[in-house]
């Protein structure tokens, strides 16, 4: 078989499955379910193989057997302990592994959130508020962001009834939240339409050669 013919078969399978998925726009049907099940099965199978190769083989088996990194036996055992969840009597043992994962994840996430998000963003919100720091456009922008952040935070402050100054500020916060929702919605529409365009480009250009 020539390479072109093989490529045509591959593209045709992809094109057919794309049309199967699009058929859901009419209603749920066997073609859609066929494509859905193939996708789920392929993804799961591929992922199992990928994790087996990239984690078990490359990061555990090879380092232990070839490089003598016997310390890796400990995480290996922690991984095996997770399988005790399959037994009702022994499932408590898996808590050791879960505790390790939770501690590790929390430690990294706290550092990432604090130093990567909270502190730099708070600092930037305060930056540029003083007159003369930059041009008037940047100054106005800095104040809009500052007011937006403070009023939005106040909207989510529930320990006091939203009346008087607090109520007015919270209502300003709602305006900023709505603008944020609008921006997110607009971008989401653009993202979803992009996916449709991508599929159409595939069907019409790569598969059917209707466009260049």
């Amino acid at each position, binding site marked *: 078989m020539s390479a072109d013919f093989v490529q045509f078969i591959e593209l045709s399978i992809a094109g057919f499955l794309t049309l199967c998925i699009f058929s859901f726009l009419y209603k749920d049907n066997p073609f859609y379910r066929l494509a859905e099940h193939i996708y789920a099965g392929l993804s799961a199978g591929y992922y199992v193989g*990928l994790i087996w190769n990239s984690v078990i083989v490359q990061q555990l088996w090879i380092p232990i057997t070839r490089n003598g990194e016997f310390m890796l036996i400990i995480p290996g055992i922690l991984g095996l302990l997770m399988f005790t969840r399959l037994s009702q009597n022994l499932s408590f043992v898996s808590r050791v592994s879960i505790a390790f994962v939770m501690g590790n994840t929390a430690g990294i996430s706290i550092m990432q959130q604090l130093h990567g998000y909270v502190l*730099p963003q708070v600092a930037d919100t305060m930056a540029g508020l003083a007159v003369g720091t930059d041009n008037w456009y940047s100054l106005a922008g800095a104040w809009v*962001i500052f007011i937006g952040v403070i009023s939005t935070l106040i909207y989510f402050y529930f320990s006091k009834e939203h009346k008087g100054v607090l109520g007015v500020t919270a209502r300003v916060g709602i305006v900023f939240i709505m603008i*944020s929702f609008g921006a997110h919605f607009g971008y989401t529409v653009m993202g979803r339409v992009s996916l449709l365009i*991508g599929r*159409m480009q595939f069907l019409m250009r790569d598969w059917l050669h209707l*466009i260049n």
Partner: protein
Amino acid sequence: MVSLSVILPLILTVSLPISISPESQRLFDRVEAIPDGSTILLTFDYYPSTLAETEPMSVAALRHCWRKDLKIVTLSTVGLGGPNIADRVMATLAEEFDKNYGIDYVNLGYKANYQAVLLGLGQSIRSIYPTDYYGTPLDSLPMMTDFDTYDGFDFIYIISDNGIVDYWVGLVNARYGAEMGAGVTAVMAPKFYAYVRADQLIGLLGGMKGAAEYEYLVEAEGMATSGMVAQSMVHMTIIAFIIIGNISYFATRRRNVS
């Protein structure tokens, strides 16, 4: 109507002017300022499902880098798709730019547990990736012999369709001070503009529009540019439907009141 708004512009190959956002321009200018011969890290942190938005960014970024004769190390924190897409895209463009594997570019592939990978690369690339995507030891690749941490990269260019950008910024930029820019899907873009404002990201490409802007900047119009006319048409259609829906609603309400 939406389907027609997508199909017709693709068939008729109409074009519309593309305005460049400051975030895209900043990213382009930063890459442009990297001295020739430097090495950058380009990530393929995305699944095949978002290829329409992310692949044009990768292609445009690669074109920009190789026109400048930069060396590229690539990796992926996404197992399903990322490394294979990197392999395909880089091999195709390497042929066009006459680049050689191991000398001009290296594909490190995928490793599970992205948090450990990102932190580990700051200490030793070899400890995380003893071999590349094809199983070749890193020390046998000429362009990988001189460095072993993020210090070896003049810039980190992230192309992503998921929250990994938070970790690149929060772990790598914050801890190791590595300079970076990102191209992300439209759904994620609004969140990451805050990083650009705080100079945690040098620049940002948002969705197909961002990809089209970068294609324009590198003077290599491709899939994103051709898709932007359809994008604009669909947006006009949606806006028209929103206006018609509102007029219809208020007209009906007025009729019911009277």
